[in-house]
């Protein structure tokens, strides 16, 4: 036993030493690229605009996109154009929903060279900035992003500012979403419901009753695990962190006050509404266990459900589900606001491991100015993957369909750049971009666009609150419990998890921001 201990110590210490040595190596390679702001001298492109003075460079770009058979081909086409413009080639890496988040963290932590990455606010963007993973882009934008500035709504460039510096380039698209309903058009027509008459969610209740009484096989209102709560309150309040943590503020023109979102009038109202609908049998009984509502929606067994709406949403969903749908906002005649979260839900960043950030910025710039490159990225190669059926609309190329296309299924809104450059799919309405521009004009940016909450002081509390959110708040949104009976329990759990500390810390942060921008 004695000898063994000594040997054990010996082994452990050798291990530690060798690890330290090894990690010493890793340290060097991680910090080799610039510290924060300094731009490496490999690029003198700031002054010279001609590509003749630019050295060739390979841009490693990581996007949220599915694996495509023809990725190499598309990459080659893009590079032909890219070489001419900025003497660079791009190396596209696609991770899809199942492992993007995981891979992102591992790739960033392991210090490998990454030039461009998709990092939206709902996937840890703030965290990465707080941990200094992304570079500040202010100077880079000024020098190499002229087309970006021209082609993007100004509010977008205020949103990803943290501690005074810009850390991402958002995608130009819909600047907000409205909470609303999607209805089965057939049933709407059958009973002559007037969609335009909806001013608030309660208005559809008589319709739900009609459906329940007259259509036995149809679910009046489908709630997938309580999702309607988030959609119906989103026009009124905003979470500062993830959706599980009920800390945030109400949308308003006035001063921003950080509060416990479960106690707002609107939250209570919708919880009670859900509860009453559940008791009356309008909501599907398996609301708690339903994780994927798609099959039953596709089977046309549902009358209504909630979604985040934007122009053309019902058309998009029609393509997905295969029958006619109509949409209607849940709230009428209210002021819509754009918040930071809306503007940062799709954006590209340049990590600190990039060896030529200026070149990376130039590539992003191209995505705002160069229609050819943007559409190659979004849709593939003309003639091979799609064909044009009108000036701005496309359809599958001949002989190509969803199953055999070598470049299909991407989320165009996640590919960065300006979506207004994208071609429109045949099933969408030709004036979608026009409508979207109008839609964007309606909303007002809130006073605190440009403020994001850095929760590193309270990260333990945030973690604890997230669990409470997932375990205890859920039943409320599923309509399984009465708010008044049930909430006091939740409140005490929230308090134990430190919600007041988070609220105070957050309010401080807001006040600082407001006073610094005055």
């Amino acid at each position: 036993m004695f000898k063994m201990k000594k040997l054990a110590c010996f082994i452990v210490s050798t291990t530690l030493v060798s690890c330290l040595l090894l990690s010493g190596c890793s340290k060097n390679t991680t910090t080799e690229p610039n510290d924060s702001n300094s731009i490496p001298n490999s690029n003198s492109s700031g002054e010279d605009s001609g590509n003749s003075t630019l050295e060739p460079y390979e841009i490693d770009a990581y996007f949220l996109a599915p694996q495509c058979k023809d990725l190499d081909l598309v990459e080659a086409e893009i590079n032909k154009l890219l070489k001419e413009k900025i003497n660079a080639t791009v190396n596209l890496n696609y991770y899809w929903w199942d492992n993007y988040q995981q891979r992102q963290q591992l790739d960033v932590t392991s210090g490998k060279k990454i030039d461009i990455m998709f990092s939206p606010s709902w996937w840890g963007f703030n965290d990465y900035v707080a941990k200094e993973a992304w570079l500040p882009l202010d100077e880079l934008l000024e020098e190499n992003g002229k087309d970006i500035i021209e082609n993007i709504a100004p509010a977008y460039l205020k949103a990803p500012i943290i501690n005074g510096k810009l850390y991402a380039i958002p995608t130009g698209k819909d600047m907000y979403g409205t909470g609303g309903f999607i209805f089965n058009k057939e049933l709407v027509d059958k009973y002559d419901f007037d969609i335009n008459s909806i001013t608030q969610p309660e208005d559809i209740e008589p319709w739900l009753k009609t459906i329940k009484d007259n259509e036995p096989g149809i679910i009046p209102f489908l709630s997938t695990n309580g999702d309607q709560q988030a959609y119906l309150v989103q026009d009124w309040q905003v979470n500062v962190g993830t959706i599980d943590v009920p800390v945030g503020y109400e949308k308003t023109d006035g001063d921003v006050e950080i509060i416990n979102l479960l106690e707002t009038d609107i939250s209570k109202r919708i919880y009670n509404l859900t509860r009453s609908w559940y008791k009356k049998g309008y909501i599907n009984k398996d609301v708690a266990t339903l994780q994927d509502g798609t099959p039953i929606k596709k089977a046309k067994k549902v009358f209504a459900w909630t979604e985040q709406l934007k122009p053309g949403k019902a058309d998009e969903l029609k393509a997905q589900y295969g029958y006619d749908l109509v949409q209607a906002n849940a709230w009428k005649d209210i002021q819509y606001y754009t918040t930071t979260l809306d503007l940062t839900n799709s954006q590209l960043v340049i990590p600190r491991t990039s060896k030529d950030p200026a070149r990376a910025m130039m590539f992003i710039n191209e995505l705002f100015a160069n229609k050819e490159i943007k559409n190659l990225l979004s849709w593939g190669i003309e003639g091979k993957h799609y064909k044009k059926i009108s000036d701005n609309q496309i359809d599958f190329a001949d002989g190509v369909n969803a199953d055999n296309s070598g470049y299909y299924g991407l989320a165009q809104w996640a590919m960065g750049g300006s979506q207004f450059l994208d071609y429109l799919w045949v099933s969408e309405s030709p004036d979608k971009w026009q409508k979207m521009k109008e839609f964007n004009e309606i909303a007002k940016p809130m006073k605190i666009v440009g403020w994001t909450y850095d929760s590193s002081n309270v990260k333990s509390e945030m973690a604890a609150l997230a669990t409470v959110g997932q375990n205890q708040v859920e039943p409320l949104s599923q309509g399984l419990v009465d708010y008044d009976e049930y909430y006091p329990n939740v409140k005490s759990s929230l308090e134990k998890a430190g919600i007041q500390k988070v609220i105070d810390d957050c309010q401080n942060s807001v006040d600082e921001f407001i006073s610094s921008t005055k």
Partner: protein
Amino acid sequence: MKTKNIKRPVEINSIKPTTNLVLNVIFSVYCIACIAPLILIFMVSITDQASLATNGYSFFPSKISLDAYRYLFSDLGKLLRTYGITIFTCVVGTFFCVLFTMLYAYPLSRKTFKYRNFFAFFIFFTMLFQGGLVPWYILYTKYLNLQNNLLALIMPPIMNAFYVLVAKTFFSINVPDSVLEAARIDGASEFKIFRKIVIPMSTPVIATVALFSSLAYWNDWYLCLLYINDPKYYNLQYSMYQALRSLQFLTSSLVPSSSAASSLANVPGETLRMAMAIVGIGPIIFAYPFFQRYFIKGLTIGAVKG
């Protein structure tokens, strides 16, 4: 007469026919509880998705549809390729796992080996303490450069404290020192003893480790998620996992706005998941019967008693 005499010792040592019957009944009932779910899964996988949404699971689907399988097999080449990759990693991995496990466990079981406790603790410790995903990932991708390399799928599960300790236990009990001593006296080298005596006596534990190990390799999708980017090298479970998760995310409320994914219109949901379960099990179901025959009473050299 004579044959009866030889038979008797075995018969005497069997359990009574009534006990046998009772046990058989119990097992049969339990087996139904094991097979029925699988049959149900199969039934669901061939059910039409829409009717599933309305009628729920049933052993007798109201409407049959092979859509799920059509979707899975649509890229037959890819599917076969993933099968191939999986089988390859499975076979190679299991071979080395068994080899190294036996090599490591044997010295641990020798009571004359002074450092046996140290080495036992050395591997057992790994079961308790882990450094975490990130350092391990950095090691593999940065220093060993195993990104997109099949070795990254084979190496991690090779040394497993559980298998080693089970093997060690087996060696300690069932490979008596006296046999080994006899062989040593006869001048055989340690390796020869290992090869010619220990291994043949240990078929049950070899089969056990081989079975567990091949299952571990077969079911893995996580290693693939971490280390393999190139679809050429996807293994079966991961490629199916990927297809399913993509579907999940797109229909979840996490995503602020979904794309015009008309591709979603044709993809079956739950039936797909069930079909994947069936396809994923496929060949490995035969692994158990294959290894089973080694769980028979092992060969023992009668010379022990001497």
